């Protein structure tokens, strides 16, 4: 055998070993991680991860989750302009608990003292008792993890979304908050090269915490004319909590009516404010009725529904309809 073939064989052998090694590692990490001895894991641990680092540090590995979270309202719960206004320049102590929580554990959290600009960040939601709590039983060499079934249950969100959670619970619907606001896709939990190959894909919840859209499929309308009255009802058909819903924010639906006569002239107007703070939000699957006295003969009513989120002063159109007798 010449030198060249020898070298080639050696390389092939090394390659086989490497592949076998990676396969073995893949097997252990994904299937039999409880067999990995603790001292070996200790070697891979990155200690600073347990010292409540900022979210950016988690992004070293969980980049996609970080990018989604960064776009969420949770990442700006402390820096939001409307929050600063409502909390009197952030001096109201009562407000801190949910806007800069130390650690979420199924009840109203206590406020934290450091890294306030991070709002509700990775550590608030995941770091409990020295481990990263999450929905999976898995092994993460850089940090200890702990499977906690609460992460896929509504009660977790209910730690802070207390009123919404109560509304949801009363509907007895099965879909959890996460089902609608953190829908899962099959993907890698980490993007760091190496780690992403060694860990297989799992369901990853969308950390953008989707702000649900609503349309005429969600909010149904019925209307009728009767004697001197115009009757209308709205029905929240799909959303298993009030629409809108809030804890301390003040999101609203505005319902506008314009009444026209047969000449097409405007003869009257009316308006309703549907807001959780005023106990007028649309409950799940229950009709809400409104009734207006007509002083003049009416040929047409225009009905417009607009939505204003808690964190905005702008309204978005939900739908617009015309009703005729």
């Amino acid at each position, binding site marked *: 055998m010449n030198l060249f073939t020898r070298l080639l064989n050696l390389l092939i052998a090394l390659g086989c070993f490497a592949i076998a090694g990676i396969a073995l590692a893949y097997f252990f990490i994904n299937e039999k991680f409880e067999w990995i001895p603790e001292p070996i894991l200790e070697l891979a641990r990155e200690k600073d991860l347990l010292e409540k680092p900022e979210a950016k540090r988690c992004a070293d590995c969980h980049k996609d989750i970080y990018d989604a979270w960064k776009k969420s309202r949770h990442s700006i719960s402390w820096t939001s302009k409307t929050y600063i206004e409502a909390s009197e320049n952030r001096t109201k102590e*009562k407000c801190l608990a949910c806007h800069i929580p130390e650690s979420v554990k199924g009840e109203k959290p206590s406020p934290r003292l450091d890294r306030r600009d991070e709002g509700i960040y990775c550590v608030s939601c995941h770091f409990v008792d020295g481990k990263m709590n999450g929905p999976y039983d898995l092994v993460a060499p850089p940090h200890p993890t702990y499977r906690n079934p609460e992460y896929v249950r509504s009660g977790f969100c209910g730690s802070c979304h207390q009123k919404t959670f109560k509304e949801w619970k009363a509907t007895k619907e099965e879909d959890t908050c996460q089902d609608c606001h953190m829908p899962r896709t099959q993907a890698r939990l980490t993007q760091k090269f190496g780690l992403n190959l060694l860990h297989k894909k799992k369901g990853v919840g969308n950390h953008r915490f989707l702000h649900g859209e609503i349309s005429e499929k969600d909010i149904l309308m019925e209307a009728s004319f009767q004697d001197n009255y115009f009757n209308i009802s709205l029905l929240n058909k799909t959303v298993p909590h009030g629409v809108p819903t809030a804890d301390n924010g*003040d999101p609203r639906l505005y319902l506008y009516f314009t009444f026209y006569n047969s000449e097409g002239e405007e003869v009257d107007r009316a308006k309703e404010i549907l807001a959780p703070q005023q106990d007028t939000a649309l409950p799940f699957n229950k009709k809400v009725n409104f009734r207006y006295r007509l002083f003049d003969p009416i040929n047409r009513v225009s009905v417009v529904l607009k939505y204003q989120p808690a964190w905005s002063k702008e309204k978005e159109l939900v739908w617009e309809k015309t009703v005729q007798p």
Partner: protein
Amino acid sequence: MSFARTFLIYFTIAFMIVLPVHAKDVVLKEPPKSLDQFYPPHSKQPKWTQQMHKLSNHFGGVFINLKEKDFENVDKHADKLVEEYKKTSEMVPEWEEYFDLKAAEAFAAAAKTHDMKKAGKASGDLGKTCGKCHAEHQISVWTKYHWPSFHKIKVTDPSSEKEVEFDKFMKQISGSFKSMRVNFGEGQYDRAAKALKAFKSEYMELKSTCSKCHTNDDVKRFYVGGDAETAFQGLAKELNAEKPDPGNFWKNVGLVGKTGCKNCHLTHRTYSKIKEIWEEK
């Protein structure tokens, strides 16, 4: 914490706060500017309040440990009390003369004899320094630093959908309320009905302000809750009737005025008034 300990601490606190004040005039002095730095937004924590907790813990700690005959800790608390007392006396220059360092040292010395009687006796002079300052300043401090300000709250006017200042909104609501009453008195029921609509939507808009200060929805049972709702329904019923009954109408007006406006003013306006005076430049 054991029950006895908790009890003792509360007892000492209560004792100090309830020290008799003889004058019957109540004077609320605006707290000195230099106190600002120890309260939000100037500091993250209410540092002055925390300093008070330290004083009270060490003060109480001396007695608790005397009772438990844990003399090592008696000495520790006595030393810490003097240290923190001295530190506190340097925090707000305008308040320096409220402190009596000699009394604090005398108390510490008495405590270190480990004789309960002597310590009790020496605590009187020190306790008086706490009580005097509390009598003169505690309420002003609550008002200035713990009461949120209505003057910074905006309310959305339901008709224009623009945000207005709280006191302007109050004037507006007061106007709509009056307009309804006056029109009713004149027998102009259609106009009164229109004014009621505006008045009611403005009144209900107040419900959106509670959560700017309160984190518990239960408070909404008051002023803007069931009583107000019933009164508004009563008003609407009369104004839509063929022949309105003045007795019922005025009864419901009274209900809104009393359980709504008046009671809310009684809980919130006193502080708001004082703050307003201090905030005027």
